[in-house]
């Protein structure tokens, strides 16, 4: 297999349930070894897209290929290339962890000889050694989740698809899972979906935000921040006469504007939010100009927009587009 073919190529994918589109014309490609984060509100079509990628659900139209193998015509080949952990991580309750992994390994056609050492390796990797002889139904959520991940990476497939791997875990366990996913970087192509945005931000090379079955934004987390938000925010704690502030700000940068302003505190300091239309750092200029104008500055910080802001902005934008379209069609009729 050459590295030239992308690990995953999705073009114009459409899936509708009884005429209602769940996924509407999604296209993206993913190079080998990359980690893609799939973001979207509930019902955006994340799970549906993942299920189509695994060949579990047929697509209504469009083309999906995993490592160059089309999912629709070569489902068996595709199933050998992926490790999949579905939403809510269903596991049989009445099996032991090692038994379950053995059974799954046999189904995934790992030779008996290699399976034993591989199970040990995976148990070690997912920190499951202590519970290997426990019954899955009696494990805590964190362990169950890790059993699911262990199962997904068991056969060392080139592509791993995990639907919300960190749902319901405590911060410590999230950290473990995050490290685990990061350790796969470069060796395996990983797609994860999540609601926990900082999670995606830390682990993923690329982010795909979908809403109502459409891709609303994609790129690296930094790209998205710039592209979707397109401006920088500063927070300033200042005391003094603020009437001349807009002129001062205009002199620093024409796009700089004062936003929300809090009530002055007992000591006379006001918290201000400033926004600039681009992302060059204006911190130094701000400090110098305001100080020379006789204002007393206590704190200045540049707000780092999180992926959460990007996500909210991107999904809101797509809602706006949609509601505009509805309004237009309503006014036309």
């Amino acid at each position, binding site marked *: 297999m050459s590295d030239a073919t992308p690990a995953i190529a999705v073009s114009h994918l459409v899936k509708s349930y009884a005429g209602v589109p769940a996924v509407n014309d999604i296209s993206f490609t993913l190079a080998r070894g990359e980690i893609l984060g799939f973001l979207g509100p509930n019902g955006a079509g994340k799970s549906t897209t993942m299920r189509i990628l695994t060949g579990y*659900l047929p697509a209504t139209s469009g083309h999906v290929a995993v490592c160059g193998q089309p999912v629709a015509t070569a489902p068996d080949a595709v199933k050998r290339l992926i490790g*999949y952990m579905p*939403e809510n991580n*269903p*596991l049989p309750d009445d*099996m032991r962890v090692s038994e379950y992994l053995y059974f799954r390994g046999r*189904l995934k056609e790992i030779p008996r000889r290699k399976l034993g050492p591989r199970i040990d390796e995976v148990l070690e990797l997912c920190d499951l050694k202590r519970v290997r002889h426990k019954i899955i139904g009696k494990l805590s959520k964190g362990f169950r989740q890790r059993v699911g991940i262990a*199962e997904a990476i068991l056969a060392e497939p080139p592509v791993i698809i995990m639907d919300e791997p960190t749902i319901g875990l405590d911060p410590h366990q999230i950290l473990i899972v995050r490290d685990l996913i990061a350790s796969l970087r470069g060796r395996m192509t990983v797609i994860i979906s999540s609601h926990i945005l900082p999670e995606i931000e830390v682990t993923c090379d690329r982010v795909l935000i979908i809403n109502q079955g459409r891709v609303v934004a994609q790129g690296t987390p930094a790209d998205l921040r710039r592209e979707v938000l397109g401006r920088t925010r500063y927070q300033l704690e200042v005391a003094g006469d603020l009437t001349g502030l807009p002129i001062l700000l205009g002199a620093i940068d024409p796009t700089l504007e004062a936003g929300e302003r809090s009530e002055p505190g007992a000591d006379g300091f006001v918290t201000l939010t400033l926004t600039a239309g681009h992302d060059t750092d204006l911190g130094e200029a701000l400090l110098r100009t305001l100080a020379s104008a006789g204002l007393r500055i206590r704190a200045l910080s540049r707000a780092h927009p999180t992926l959460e802001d990007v996500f909210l902005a991107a999904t809101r934008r797509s809602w706006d587009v949609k509601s505009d379209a509805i309004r237009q069609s309503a006014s036309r009729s």
Partner: protein
Amino acid sequence: MKHFPTLLNHEVRMLLVNPSTYIAATAFLVFMGFIFTGILESYSRAPQETSPAHVFFQLFWLPVFFMVPLLTMKCLAEERRLGTIETLLTTPVTTTEVVLGKYSAAYLLYLTLWGSTGGFFWILHKFAGDARFLDTGPLLGGYLFIAVSGLLFIAVGVFASSLSRNQAVAGILGFTMLFALIIGLRFLDDAAWLERDVLQAVKATVEYAQIFQHYEDFTRGVVDTRQLLFYLSGTVLALIFSILGVEAKLLHS
């Protein structure tokens, strides 16, 4: 069919570690034991025309109605309810292998349960010391009938299980289908409106599908290939429908 042994092995193992298997087996044996003692009591009171084995197997429908839905209702419905069907079908196994694995495991358990009733006859033989009680013809014919008809009954149960994600619904559905198959066809055979000339073909078909008649033939030592074909083709049909049932549920889930 590469994965069939793995799946069958897994299913049998799951049955063996599951307490409900043992509860069902005990209940079955207690129930059949009661029937058997009842039969022996009636024999001790007055001489009968047929052997105890004949009467015993004639009541095959009683355990079939209750045991088959109980054994099979879980197999596919449970997988779907837990969502494990999704992990199962995203490995390189086919739906056919999954359905056949479940079916074979349920059938093996069914055979084992019936096989264990052989103990009753052994005890009878041991204590009665009378060879007349153990008429090998009806005994072997009876067991052969159980094995052959079990193929179809279990397949019907598996099909019912493939239609629902709720075990109770699958169980009741399985019971209804078996009832229609065994008792319904018998009533249909007696129906007067089928006597008309136009319905001759229907009447012939219904007569051909009389499961009680098949039983009588088997115990008399008549193993008719047409009857074997009835059970085999019925089994294959029910299993194909189960596979379609699982896949159709995938399409609309």
